[in-house]
């Protein structure tokens, strides 16, 4: 406070503080007291590697001794098989030569890339178009959700205005009603919008994005609001004294400090719009506009099992970027999940 020349962005304690402390506290919605719930998952991987094995052998109760018995590995392996086998099966089916459901049952008996070739070259089912559509819809939705949610959270966290409490409460209530339930009205609304903005109405990807963005505030503002509150207001005040405008404080100071929660919200929004089937099915009506969810379903539903190999190839390719993103951002996501967000 006494050094007005400090630029607001580079406040020394900022980045470090944001890495841990606000993180843990950003998950208070469900935590009810144990506000550090979110912290352990972050250390999930680190811990196992760090802790050397034999240390406190003598302090073993009867239960512990039993637990250390050999049953853990078989149980763990069973769980892993359960988790893995549908995915392995799909991978094998995508490589199978026969391409039918029955023919896919002999895992990895023959390996061919024919399904992938067919998938990418079939003009009837433009997989690459669907893929691009999905990416466009999900990325746009994620970016829009992050921008709007963060702006709203900033307003609620930093400004004191008359409708603030009421607004927060209203958001809390509105977010309980899944937008999904209003799908009939959404269909009718977009039908009407088509006459005015054809590119925003039925059968348009942007229209679908707009629908998804309708849920941007409700679901995520709270998650972000908690996180924003953990950034000390002293920082804002110092910057303000230095003459920074509200926009400068927001864009150059606050946003970099809250990056973790932005990543989580963006990621969750990406996943939920990527996986959404119901709204996408209602809005998008032509194969050229389909997202992967709608396209692959139509593809496999026409003659179930006939195109199994090609479908599996499509599933594997579609999953790769999502799984990669997940694994890449695992730490963030795990913590964000504990914060109360649920995969859609």
């Amino acid at each position, binding site marked *: 406070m006494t050094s*007005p020349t400090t630029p*607001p962005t580079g406040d020394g304690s900022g980045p470090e503080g944001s890495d841990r402390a606000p993180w843990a506290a950003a998950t*208070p*919605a*469900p*935590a009810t007291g144990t506000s550090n*719930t*979110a*912290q352990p*998952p972050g250390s999930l991987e680190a811990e196992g590697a760090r802790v050397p*094995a*034999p240390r406190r052998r003598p302090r073993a*109760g*009867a239960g512990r001794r039993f637990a*250390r018995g050999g049953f*853990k590995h078989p149980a*763990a392996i069973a769980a*892993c098989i359960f*988790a893995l086998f549908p*995915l392995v099966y799909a991978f094998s*089916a995508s490589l199978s030569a026969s391409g039918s*459901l029955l023919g896919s049952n002999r895992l990895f008996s023959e390996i061919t890339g024919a399904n992938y070739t067919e998938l990418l070259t079939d003009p009837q089912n433009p997989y690459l178009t669907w893929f691009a559509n999905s990416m466009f819809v999900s990325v746009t939705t994620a970016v829009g959700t992050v921008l*709007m949610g963060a702006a709203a959270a*900033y*307003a609620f966290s930093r400004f004191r*205005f008359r409708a603030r409490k009421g607004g927060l*409460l209203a958001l*809390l209530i*509105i977010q309980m009603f*899944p937008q999904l*339930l*209003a*799908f*009939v*009205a*959404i269909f009718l*609304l977009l039908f009407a919008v088509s*006459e*005015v903005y054809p590119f925003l109405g039925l059968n348009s990807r942007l229209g679908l994005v707009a629908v998804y963005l*309708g*849920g*941007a*505030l409700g679901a995520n503002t709270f998650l972000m*609001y908690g996180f924003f*509150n953990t950034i000390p207001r002293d920082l804002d005040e110092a910057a303000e*004294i230095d*003459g920074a*405008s509200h*926009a400068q404080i927001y864009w150059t100071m606050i946003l970099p400090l809250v990056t973790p929660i932005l990543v989580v919200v963006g990621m969750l929004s990406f*996943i939920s719009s990527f996986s959404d*089937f*119901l709204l996408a099915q209602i809005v998008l009506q032509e194969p050229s506009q389909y997202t992967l969810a709608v396209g692959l379903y139509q593809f496999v539903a026409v003659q179930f*099992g006939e195109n*199994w190999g090609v479908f599996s190839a499509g599933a594997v390719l*579609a*999953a790769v970027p999502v*799984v990669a993103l997940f694994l890449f951002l*695992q730490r963030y996501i*795990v913590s964000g999940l504990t914060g109360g967000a*649920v995969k859609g």
Partner: protein
Amino acid sequence: MSTSTTSRDGTSNRGETGLGEPLELRHSHARGFGLGFVVKLILMAGINAFGLFGILAAWAAGSWGILAFLVIALIVADLVYFLPGKRILPAKYLFPGLIFLLVFQIFVLLYTATTAFTNYGDGHNSTKEAAISQLTNTYEQRIEGSEAYPITVLSGDDGLALATVEGDQVLVGTADQALAPLEGARASDGRVVEAPGFETLDYAGTVAAATELSELRVPVSGQEAEGVLRTDDGRTAYAYDSTLVYDENADAMVADDGTVYANNGEGAFAGPDGEELRPGWQIFVGLDNFGAIFDPGTLGGPFVSVTLWTFAFAILSVALTFLLGLLLAILFNDEKLKFRNFYRAIIFLPYAFPGFLSILIWAGLLNTDYGFINDVLLGGAAVPWLENPWLARLSLLLVNLWLGFPYMFLVTTGALQAIPKEIYESAEMDGAGAVRKFRSITLPLLMVAVGPLLIASFAMNFNNFNVIYLLTGGGPQNLESTTGVGATDILISFVYKIAFAGGTNDYGLASALSILIFIMVAVISALTFRRSKALEEIN
């Protein structure tokens, strides 16, 4: 214009005293002619252009509701972003999200609520006037023994007109004007080639105006009984008369055989035997839709069974995923377990894999004839996993368990690790055994942290459309039922079927059912809401 003092209002005074040199940062990007201002101007110009375009288009299309909304939204947007002052600041940050929230969440909610009280749906989707004119046109018939009129399509100031040659006279008529001789018109070969005040349409022009032409009705004469001319190809017209005439006094459609189709008060004209004419029109039906849902004779039976299954599905899904997740979390909460991180990564995979894809893969796995489970794991058995009602329910729970347990595993692992070790140590000193420790320490502390997530998970599964629709499609269908409801339909997929699948699209009924789901979700949320800390956070 760009002075920094105005931008910070009151606060800048406080900061200015004794602070020495103002910094470069003092120039507000939003108000000075800096980069920020330029960006803002460009954005606002784009938004205004977008809005104005929409206003014009809405005007042209006659969408008055959208027009009014756009005008208001545009004015508010300009006010919010160009008015100076600190009081408007929060609005600058809230406006974008609020607009989307307003349209795609709040409006659709209210719209759902109003639709629930109408009979909106197939056969009831427009006004009464539209229904009458459509009925009149649909039920028209070529007058028996009437001649064919070779015609030429003309285009005049009042729209299309038809011209025909009778003897050596050229007759021209429009929708409002019965056929009458036109002075100065010229015909050759029985076709009109020139008509003053009109432009004759060639073949291409006729094709281009095909829609308008198909709706054109030209009275043959002043007498209604002679019918109206109607053409399908633009070259020949026939005299038609409607077999149905609207009688304004009786508010009924009267057929030419004397049958009276009276307004039955339910948005349709119905004959004496109760047969309704299609289309009808949209009316408010009060609580009829809700009545139908609770009436055992119509939807009552399916509604109760679907609701029960919805609750059972949601509760069992949460319970099973939580139990398995907790079990694994306890199992892996052992620092000495080898390959612990490897196991964790594997178990994480189902969560990372896009849900809609894994559900479809499971549908293949569980296929009765060719599925991997029957064919390989069960050695060629033909267990009807998705065809038998109870097995289908079991399969759904199994698949949902697969989809959900990694999430529960992650969450409970986090919560378990957050429980301080000291508590266990002091409990051990007091002589607590493993079971006692679990019951008195682990479980209560775990539930505090995970409880709200379980409720969230319940709410999500309550409306888990994807897993139902993609795995079983709600089936197997109850063949005795006329509603198309299946054994595994949950409420949301039931709504979907009423609205979009099956023979009729009954939006009113579907909306009413949606409202009921809203209410259930609201009650559940309210019950659990009080225990949530979220409220305290606001204060």
